[in-house]
């Protein structure tokens, strides 16, 4: 690890004032400290924001909206009764990620700005345009499992690894940001950036800006009774997704009133599919409908490596997630959250 200055501000204003080019804000440290050890990140100053006041509250309003402080730990967010009730797929996504230890440390804000788990990004000795603009991309032709099938560019084929952000994008969450030029709020869907020619710009954060809260819009809780997160991975637990999906319905009688569908680990951002949502709205849920929605979800997908199999996996993951959502949010969080091995009627092959 490279040497750095360590500062412990006591307010958001002090934290912003402590920022300088090359500085990093430290929350739970589960991603930042790891990447400092590998040498992928080399901040000259680390600003410990964990003692900033007023960033750890979860407030859910009667209209289904919420404001969640950026320093709420993943474990606390996942077990908060109001989150389980209003946005159960957010809790399910959180609990499918990392381990009990990591969830106790990791923060909401940190989850939003976490880096790709592309092995070539994390290895300081590999060429990476995202870490070192213009250096090239050793991921091309390399290990393909967690590489993109949507929205990738010649410069970068990495994916965003967040589970949490997938249902948050599906539910139209927005990000509240403090910065040297004042505060602003933006949709989470616009927060993560596709690589294009500038993969080093992973998020829309400007230099020195700090996430202070996440907002859920009114109506987000209307999807609570039919909302699931599904995560397909190489191990049963404690692994990043190969492909994941957040699927939710607001039912009107037996019909789908409104639908939400977002894929994870297929692109550098959570991949919301509004065409599929439009196709589902107003329909009676059935397997053929879900297959059409899944086709729309993967329209335009292209392998970035030897990973064409992820396109079919994404299609099937979308179908399965839609079926899980249709059968309803379980009363209790499953023992294996987001697992394809969870209880559901025998999966029909489609």
């Amino acid at each position, binding site marked *: 690890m490279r*040497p750095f200055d*360590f500062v412990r501000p006591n307010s958001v204003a002090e934290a912003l004032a402590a920022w300088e080019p090359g500085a990093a804000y430290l929350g739970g*440290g589960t991603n930042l*400290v790891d990447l400092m*050890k590998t040498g992928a990140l080399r901040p000259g100053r680390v600003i410990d924001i964990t003692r900033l006041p007023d960033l750890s509250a979860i407030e859910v309003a009667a209209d289904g909206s919420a404001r969640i402080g950026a320093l709420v730990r993943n474990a606390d967010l996942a077990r908060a009764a109001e989150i389980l009730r209003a946005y159960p797929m957010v809790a399910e996504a959180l609990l499918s990620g990392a*381990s*009990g*230890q990591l969830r106790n440390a990791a923060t909401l804000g940190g989850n939003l700005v976490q880096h790709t788990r592309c092995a070539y990004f994390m290895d300081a000795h590999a060429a990476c345009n995202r870490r070192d603009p213009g250096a090239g991309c050793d991921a091309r032709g390399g290990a393909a499992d967690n590489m993109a099938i949507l929205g990738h560019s010649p410069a970068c084929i990495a994916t965003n690894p967040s589970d949490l952000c997938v249902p948050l994008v599906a539910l139209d969450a927005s990000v509240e940001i403090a910065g040297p030029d004042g505060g602003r709020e933006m949709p989470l869907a616009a927060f993560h950036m596709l690589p294009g020619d500038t993969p080093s710009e992973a998020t829309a954060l400007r230099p020195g800006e700090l996430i202070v809260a996440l907002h859920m819009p009114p109506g987000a809780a209307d999807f609570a009774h039919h909302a699931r997160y599904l995560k397909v991975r190489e191990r049963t637990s404690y692994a990043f997704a190969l492909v994941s999906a957040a699927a939710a319905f607001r039912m009107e009688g037996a019909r789908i009133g409104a639908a939400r569908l977002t894929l994870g680990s297929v692109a550098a951002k959570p991949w919301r599919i509004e065409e599929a949502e439009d196709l589902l709205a107003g329909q009676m849920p059935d397997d053929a409908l879900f297959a059409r929605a899944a086709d729309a979800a993967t329209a335009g997908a292209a392998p970035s490596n030897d990973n064409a199999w992820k396109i079919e996996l994404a299609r099937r993951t979308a179908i399965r997630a839609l079926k899980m959502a249709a059968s309803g949010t379980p009363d209790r969080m499953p023992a294996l959250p987001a697992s394809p091995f969870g209880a559901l009627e025998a999966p029909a092959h489609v």
Partner: protein
Amino acid sequence: MSLSISTTINGTTRDIALDDPRVTLLDLLRERLGLSGTKKGCDRGQCGACTVLVDGRRVNSCLTLAATLDGAEVTTIEGLAQDDALHPVQAAFIENDGFQCGYCTPGQIMSALGLILEGEAGDDPERIREGMSGNICRCAAYHGITLAVQSATRRMDAEQKGDAA
């Protein structure tokens, strides 16, 4: 640059001067405080061997910068036994063969204690396995580990009920 922290470790409050902010809690415990029960496996938050409790919650000490712990309470494997009496989780690991080589065991025990304190897994083996998935055992003693956590959960539950009665 010198940083100082005041941190309670296994019940004793210590004022610690850190000569370097890069020191992790794991290295502080092992290399500077002589508490080598906490193990270094991967040093990257992937294996769980370094698990300790900070303010009663299990975390990976390898990813925790010591400088962030001013005012915190840390419990390590050395802090569990009371004189000669093993902690119920330690006793359960022995009774259920919850290890072979023993290297991951302090982390397994601290993680198990953290899981039991979280109170959501109960003695359901499937929830215990999921809850313990952040602790890797190269000897694959997982069957015994699951039995040990079940047994310790029941014992601590019974003790708590006994205390309340």
